[in-house]
């Protein structure tokens, strides 16, 4: 009879957990399985929804309390930062361009200049007719081979998913040790641009740039969490991955990040994800990389693919690569997605080599 009692306890506990956490479970399910994850019938019943409302109420209380307790999180660092209103897409962007992030444009209103082809891997850049502005803060002292420059007191902002989480510590260490440059590392696993309900990068970037006035360079490295159908709003069908509508919405999110950088006079190095072991994922990374490359070019920012850094010359994937010294080193871990420490360091070094530090002396190491 222990089994029956055990089952009773498991079922009641699970039901209670689902009842109270239904909204976050739904988000988790959307993000992972790329479907709307509505529970049929039950999902709309008032008694069922009450659990979610209860949690939402508690969350609002908690956030209110936290705000009272921690009024100014930036207080410890330097002078108080003026909090700007939420940035609006003001600059020279076509007004029809979907720069707003949380609600991508309905497909109907997408103008004619969108490519109707389903998989425009390297199609000419559609949508945004932003003026190809020079790189933000137009560094006059760029050394040959570099694309960005940093001066004393500048900060670097790292954006990305678990790929960036691996690379970020090496970047931060080298920047600090060699040039005493501070980094703001907000990389977070499982994030990307496709599921703003789960984690909203454009908003995070906007908030961070508002609060960190010294950021002069942003390095972005993400992608593997994104090649799926994505939600476009409550009750609406998901946008099919690689469909023209999907692409418009996705490009708009890339743009709004780049737009924030431009507004705040921040240089951007966008690192494209490398080939992956699974063929489907790898092809998708090629497609997303094309989008990153085109949009960064439109904003006059810099794109660099991780493929040549890891020694991949074509669409092939390999766990180990030959170094110029002829040594074979393992650069990817066994999941066929992430990097070994060696791989992380190679990418970090390559990114560093794109930055010039006029007036900053290298200190040891």
């Amino acid at each position: 009879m222990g089994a029956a009692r055990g089952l009773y306890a498991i079922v009641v506990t699970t039901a209670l957990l689902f009842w109270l956490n239904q909204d976050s479970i739904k988000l988790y399910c959307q993000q992972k399985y790329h479907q709307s994850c509505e529970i049929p019938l039950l999902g709309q019943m008032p008694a069922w929804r009450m659990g979610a409302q209860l949690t939402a109420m508690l969350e609002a209380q908690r956030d209110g309390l936290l705000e009272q307790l921690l009024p100014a999180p930036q207080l410890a660092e330097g002078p108080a930062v003026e909090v700007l209103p939420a940035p609006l897409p003001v600059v020279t962007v076509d007004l029809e361009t979907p720069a707003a992030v949380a609600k991508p444009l309905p497909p109907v209103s997408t103008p004619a200049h969108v490519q109707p082809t389903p998989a425009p891997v390297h199609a000419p850049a559609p949508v945004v007719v932003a003026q190809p502005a020079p790189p933000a803060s137009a560094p006059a002292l760029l050394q040959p081979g570099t694309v960005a420059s940093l001066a004393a007191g500048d900060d670097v902002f790292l954006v990305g998913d678990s790929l960036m989480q691996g690379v970020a510590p090496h970047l931060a260490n080298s920047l600090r040790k060699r040039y005493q440059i501070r980094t703001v590392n907000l990389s977070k696993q499982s994030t990307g641009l496709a599921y703003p309900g789960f984690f909203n990068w454009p908003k995070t970037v906007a908030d961070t740039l508002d609060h960190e006035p010294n950021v002069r360079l942003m390095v972005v490295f993400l992608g593997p969490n994104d090649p799926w159908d994505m939600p476009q709003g409550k009750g609406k069908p998901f946008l099919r991955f690689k469909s023209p509508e999907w692409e418009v919405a996705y490009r708009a999110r890339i743009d709004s990040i780049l737009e924030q950088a431009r507004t705040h006079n921040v240089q951007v190095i966008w690192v494209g994800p490398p080939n992956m072991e699974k063929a489907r994922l790898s092809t998708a990374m090629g497609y997303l990389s094309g989008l990153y490359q085109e949009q960064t070019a439109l904003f006059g920012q810099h794109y660099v693919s991780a493929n040549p850094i890891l020694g991949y010359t074509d669409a092939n994937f390999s766990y180990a690569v030959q170094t110029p010294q002829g040594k074979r080193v393992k650069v990817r871990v066994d999941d066929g997605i992430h990097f070994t420490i060696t791989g992380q360091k190679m990418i970090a070094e390559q990114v560093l080599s794109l930055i010039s530090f006029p007036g900053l002396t290298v200190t040891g190491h």
Partner: protein
Amino acid sequence: MDYVVSFLSIEFGLCFTLFFILYWSLCWSVRLQNLLLLTASYGLVASFSLQSLYILLGYSALVYLLGLLAGRYPGRWFSRVLLLTLVLGCFYLFKYQEFFVGGAQGALAAAGFEVSLPLLEVLVPIGLSFYTFHSVSYLVSINRRELAPAAPLDLALYLAFFPSLVAGPVNRALHMLPQIRPPAMRQVLEPQRALGLIAMAVVKLFFLSAWLGSEWVDPVFDTPGSASPEQVLLSVYGYSLLIYFNFSGYTNLVTGIALLLGFRLPDNFDAPYAAHNLKEFWGRWHISLSRFIRDYVYIPLGGNRKGVWRGNLNMLLAMLVSGLWHGASVNFIIWGALHGVGLAISKLFSQWFPGFARLPGCGLLARLMTFHYVAFAWIFFRSPTLDGALEMLGDIGQLSLAGLNSATGLMLLACVLFVASYPQWLVLLRQSGALFQRLPWQLYPIPLGVGVSLVIFASQSGVPGFIYASF
């Protein structure tokens, strides 16, 4: 991107509920239950990678054959040599190749010889560290005539039993095989305690260790040198608590799952930071592993039967093996060596001052010293590089009174006070746990579900990883 099944995911919870129903509806046949368990275990391994499954299958077959051989000629030298070859060969091939080949190439290059030693590119199979230990326990027991060779499917389940496959605890054959062939019908064991353990795991993993990781530990360990000396010390305290919460939480989880399936796994943690010396610490931390190392490494090396110095040397060797088992890097070897040397010193100290621990106030002092020694050794365990670990130690050396007079200083004080008052917290926790167990079974799930929800509500989103799963 997470294709790996985690024991704390929603998916696992739902699958487990279905599995639970199916499993107990077969309670009339232990044979069918075992078959279902074996299928689930292999399914879990295959969800990591098919290659891992093939390796586990091949390994199980080899252990079965070696078991037959050992059963026919128990205690003979070739049987032991074959076992040692199998285990060391597997560890070398799958875990240590790069480390040793790299080290040997480096040493030869330093001596002026440029050689390229062969390196097979293989992936580390999931669970290898633990099922090899299970096989050692099995084969040694047969060689000692404590056990007859098991039936192939029983052995396969013993090696692959999914709750303890990924990150332990280390099961002994003498303890586990009888549970695979129980004399009577299997029962759910202590269902309320089982669910309580799982809830405890959620608190430890989702809330405590995830919070400590992102707030105190990861920022400092990832970029050592960017933090103040107080923050570095706080991250060391934080990691000491984190690794305890993470690993003991994982053990709580799998122990709870096993109890629900009618299996009792060995105890693995017993309030380790309440230890008064390192020997006691290892009797309370990852108990199943330390006992394994004691019985299958330290004692076969001669234990303490060959004099004081040889005994201490054996202890050092055993701790080095333990360090290397945790990971193939210099840092883990240093971590093992620190514990080996620390054990020897603490043993000598207790021989020279036998009454020390009974002096007033010395019990607390001993506990705090043990905690700090263990905490400082964890720096090498957690730090990705040796330079990083040394830099952190250097930073802590610059602690100043002025620096301690800060918010971070207060948190450091809170940590020390927490460790100092640990036994009292433990009593409180155990009493409230016992109270909770006494709730009638009809009501029990309600505080459980609400409590877990509150914890999830207070924690960051995402499923935490298990530190030990990567070893």
